[in-house]
């Protein structure tokens, strides 16, 4: 497991610890014995098909919903009974929000920050507006902000109480590439500079790969895969696909040892030069699709842990 900071040894108390979590609505089982430990300073992305139970899991961890059974501990407390001190340590970026449309960013941030004062020195509002790049929109009504601006304000609201743990539920839905990149920089900055533990859900695999140190895949109410993006992709296939053009013909070769294949290939191209050489490895998307497909086809996997996979 990659850990960005010292202090998050596997022996330390996990920030989030879930065991045998079940959630049943009537006859429908949404979570079916979920186990998950998250340590300090990790950035964990939770992926999974729609209806896999991602939102339910996040809502239980946020303390907005109580589970049918199982044990949940977040920052050392059961979220459903977490007090205000506990609440002040949790930052939440909700799925698409449209609250406080007639308020202005500076006004709203300053109001929300007052709630944290008994517990912590909140971020100074102007500094925070600068951090999320909203200085110019500080006194504009919220409903006039663009989608990306609004989302960055959501992050500002979530971190104003200097949380130890930040939840983000599909944070970049509807972003343009530039806004997405800025957003990712912001998340990295929070993790690196403030040491915030981060858990996010997303459907964007490139985003999961760019942001997270660890990916868990949820399907059928359980975690079916758990590891870094690299570990997941290596585990489903170590082969690489090599394509090139020679004598006007497109060639393709699949091998585990792409390096030596290419070395030999290039050594033997005196007669007819090779152009357009490409080496393509399995992407996280390939890994994700194959893991979910395996699961859905009924092969009964126990939680695959990819930590042991050789890199």
């Amino acid at each position, binding site marked *: 497991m990659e850990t960005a900071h010292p202090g998050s040894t596997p*022996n330390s108390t996990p920030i989030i610890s879930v065991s045998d979590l079940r959630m049943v609505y009537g006859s429908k089982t949404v979570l079916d014995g979920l186990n998950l430990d998250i340590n300090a300073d990790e950035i964990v992305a939770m992926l999974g098909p729609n209806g896999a139970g991602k*939102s339910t899991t996040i809502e239980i961890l946020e303390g907005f919903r109580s589970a049918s059974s199982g044990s949940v501990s977040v920052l050392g407390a059961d979220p459903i009974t977490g007090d205000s001190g506990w609440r002040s340590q949790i930052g939440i970026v909700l799925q698409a929000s449209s609250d*406080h449309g007639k308020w202005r960013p500076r006004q709203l941030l300053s*109001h929300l920050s007052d*709630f944290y004062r008994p517990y912590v020195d909140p971020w100074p509002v102007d500094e925070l507006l600068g951090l999320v790049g909203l200085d110019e929109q500080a006194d504009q009504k919220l409903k006039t902000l663009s989608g990306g601006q609004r989302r960055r304000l959501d992050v500002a609201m979530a971190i104003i109480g200097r949380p130890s743990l930040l939840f983000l539920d599909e944070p970049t839905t509807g972003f343009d590439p530039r806004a997405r990149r800025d957003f990712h920089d912001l998340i990295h900055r929070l993790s690196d500079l403030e040491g915030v533990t981060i858990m996010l859900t997303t459907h964007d695999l490139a985003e999961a790969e760019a942001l997270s140190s660890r990916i868990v895949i949820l399907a059928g109410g359980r975690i079916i895969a758990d590891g870094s993006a690299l570990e997941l992709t290596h585990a489903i296939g170590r082969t690489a696909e090599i394509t090139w053009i020679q004598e006007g013909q497109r060639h393709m070769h699949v091998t585990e040892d792409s390096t030596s294949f290419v070395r030999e290939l290039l050594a033997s191209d005196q007669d007819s030069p090779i152009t357009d050489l490409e080496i393509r490895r399995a992407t996280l998307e390939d890994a994700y699709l194959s893991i979910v497909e395996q699961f859905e086809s009924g092969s009964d996997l126990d939680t695959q842990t990819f930590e042991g996979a050789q890199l």
Partner: protein
Amino acid sequence: MTSNDIQRRIPHTNPVLNLIRTGLRRGLISARIQLTTPSEIFGTVVMLAIFIGTLFFMRGSTFAGATVDLGSTGFPGIIAMGTIFGGVMGIVSVLSMDKTNGTLLRSKSVPGGTAGYLIGEITANVINTLVTSVTLLIVGLFLFDGLDFASPARWLLFITVLVLGLVSTLSIGAVLGALMSNPKFMGLVMMPVLGLIAISGIFYPIVALPLWLQGLAQAFPLYWLGLGLRSSLLPDSMAAIEIAGSWRLEWVFIVLGLWAVLGLILAPKLLSRMARRESGSAVAARRKGVAEQWGV
């Protein structure tokens, strides 16, 4: 902090005082936003202007045996109606809108935020309703010369009845707002309120109605609020055209007080139940319901 401990935050100042203060500040901000947003006040202003206009043209006629014209007689009822609308409809619509747009959920994600939110929105509603009532009162004193508001005793009575009426209608509004999960049911609250206005002697003396309707109206706070306000604004001789020929002030206080107590017992329980159930998926489901309702 050792590596095995998760650091917990404990309050270093009184968190309850802090959330009350923050809630009251929210009330001021929210009231200012509502009072300075033309779209928010347009409906209320137009409605009240129409009613006052109607009464203005009724100045020429009087109810049989009354010493004061019908315009002045009806005027205190407009203030009562404004209070009921502001208290019940105001809080119901704020709660249901804020449940749908995620404002309540946002508040829930902040320490002490739910209580702060409720304190704030109720405060804002009190401010708005008082501003509306006082504005109405000033306009009315200029327009209707049958009113008698020239003694401190009347001022005191007016304020007492208004505040008691506000507490009872606000707490009823909070109960209804907590029960109503979706703004598409606003009509379900609107209809009974309009019905109540029709039978509560707001525009025309209640003694002109059939007895069973008079009985029904007297079970609800609107009639008593109107009666109490009339007693503070009309000459004493006008009590003659009320039920039992009296202002029955003791009953004004008893009935409004009972409704206030009932509301104040129920509202906190229902509001906290409402807040407990709030989650991202609940908000998403509500939005979907509203979107389907409006066909978008």
